[in-house]
């Protein structure tokens, strides 16, 4: 029989012996055990219920306003005529820029750290710790970085889409690197060794064996990182100044607004119609994120390599 089953039987047997030898369990042990179990389940239900209520509340408040016009109308003076078109397009532009920047840089850094870097060198370890730290820096600090260096300061791009893309790219890059590293690490050493044994150079091995094998994992990681970027608001408040934007961005050097910022802006208005509009926007954003994450999970299941 399998090893774990053997262990379990042995443990159960020893337990029976011990309990028999020691006599009864301490008084009330059973009921305390049950109580503890119940307590744990209570904690779980708080988490599950909390999430459910959050989603239901947004849904209930926003559904009356939900309609196709949310996707086709931009910001207007009247709440009944306002939609999220400007914001959705702004998000698409912004995220497009983020993808273009983070994928090569993130995958490149991950390849370097996994395939080329000598772990013993202090500077490589420093880079690793640094990436871990950057992943946990509050997002608003990235906003301050964007304001001080990208929008103003040396780069001086102004409050344009490109500045927002760069800021978010820096924010999301550590996550992409970590995810890509996991994917690359999952490729067994034997693949690499076989390739090298046949005379390939290191780069050829990476390019033709390791990278293709890890693309599904990398893609999943990138999609999850991008999902996070789509929901980011705080840094963009600092970097995308104009609060009232009623046009679609026409390029990377245009003003813009994005979905979460637009939701926040609508929320900040006191009239009830705007609060409902904000809730409807949350539904739109959640739908978008669910679609992306489902796609990522499907990708992972479909293309996951079993070595």
């Amino acid at each position, binding site marked *: 029989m399998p090893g774990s089953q053997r262990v379990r039987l042995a443990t159960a047997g020893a337990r029976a012996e011990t309990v028999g030898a020691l006599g009864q369990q301490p008084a009330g042990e059973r009921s305390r055990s049950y109580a503890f179990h119940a307590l744990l389940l209570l904690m779980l239900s708080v988490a599950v219920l909390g999430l459910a209520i959050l989603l239901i509340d947004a849904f209930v408040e926003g559904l009356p306003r939900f309609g196709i016009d949310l996707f*086709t109308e*931009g*910001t*207007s*003076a009247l709440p009944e005529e306002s939609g999220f*078109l400007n914001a*959705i*397009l702004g998000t*698409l*532009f912004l995220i*497009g820029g983020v*993808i273009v920047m983070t994928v090569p840089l993130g995958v490149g850094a991950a390849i370097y750290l996994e395939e080329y870097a000598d772990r013993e060198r202090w500077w490589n370890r420093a880079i690793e710790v640094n990436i871990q730290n950057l992943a946990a820096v509050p997002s608003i600090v990235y906003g301050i970085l964007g304001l001080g260096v990208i929008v103003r300061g040396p780069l001086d791009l102004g409050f344009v889409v490109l500045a927002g893309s760069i800021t978010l790219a820096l924010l999301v890059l550590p996550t992409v690197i970590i995810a890509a590293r996991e994917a690359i690490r999952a490729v067994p050493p034997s693949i690499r060794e076989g390739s090298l044994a046949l005379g390939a150079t290191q780069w050829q091995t990476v390019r033709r064996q390791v990278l*293709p094998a890890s*693309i*599904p994992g990398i*893609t999943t990681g990138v999609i999850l990182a991008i999902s996070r970027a789509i929901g980011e608001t705080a840094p963009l408040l600092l970097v995308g*100044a*104009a*609060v*009232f*934007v*009623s*046009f*679609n961005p*026409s390029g990377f050097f*245009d*003003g813009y607004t994005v979905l979460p910022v637009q939701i926040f802006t609508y929320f*900040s*208005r*006191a*009239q009830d119609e705007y609060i409902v509009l904000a809730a409807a926007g949350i539904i739109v954003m959640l739908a978008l994120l669910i679609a992306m994450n489902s*796609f990522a999970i499907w*990708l992972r299941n479909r*293309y996951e390599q079993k070595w």
Partner: protein
Amino acid sequence: MKKHKLLVAFPTVLALAFGVAACGGDDEASSASGEEVSGELAVDGSSTVAPLTEQVGALFQEENPDTRVTVGTAGTGGGFERFCAGETDISDASRQIEPEEEKLCQENGVEFEEIVVANDALSVVVNPDNPVTCMSPDQVSEIYGPDADATSWGDIQGLDAEYDEELAIFSPGSDSGTFDYFTEAVNGEEGKSRTQDVNVVGENDNATVTGVAGDPGGIGYFGFSFFNENQDQLKALEIENEDGECVAPAEETTQDGSYNPLGRQLYIYPSAEALQRPEVQEFIQFYLDSLGEVIPQAGFIPLTDEQLSESQQNVENLLSGGGGSGQGG
């Protein structure tokens, strides 16, 4: 290989979405006046004037689809700083430009014009449950003054002592023209205000609406349109004027001057440099022309006929190539 096909598909779909969205989704309004202009207009400044400028801007963009009007709310003071640095084309203001700001503009070679676009009754609002109906500026100063230490409504002299709710005080930030105007009128000195236990909403007047409406002891102040648009949630105090009468903020009382000291005017300041561009000229003309439509819609207090014709005269002079040189009207 299958994997690669799929992974090519995803970005292609994304690109298609870009294309469709960028091409479609634009308003196809036709221009009534025949010739359309194009270009970008950067407006920043008062959060009181912003809703008016936003609506005018939205209408303007409908008639001229190739224009972009961005409206920021850095506050009257913040707006002037950017304006005098040459960063914006037009500054929204809920008070007149100050001498230091004029000097800054002069130093940077920014010339401007001052155009009155609306009247305003700076409204002091409280929660609808609050029985108080009228307060004098001195009483308001007991709440908002720099040395004020009242913590509940019962602490204010001369008010109904039974309503002793704890004060929840809301105030704009010091970049706000409304703040400047209010502190000067009520506390006697511009810029001096209470700092302890005050919820400083910055330029977010809507937070004041929400805060006062949600708290029985709430009190706040902002431009009339914010009260007008939220009358179901708020109550505006009558203010005791210089003649000792309790006057409510309204169109008539503002226009005839009986709502004092909190009656005022709202301005836009286009820069001379911006006025050389056709789209800015169109916009200023459009602004005045559409006041009749937009002001009631946005809940503002309209100009009197006198004020309107004066502003129109101003604009005519400007656009006909003459115009003033950097001095306020």
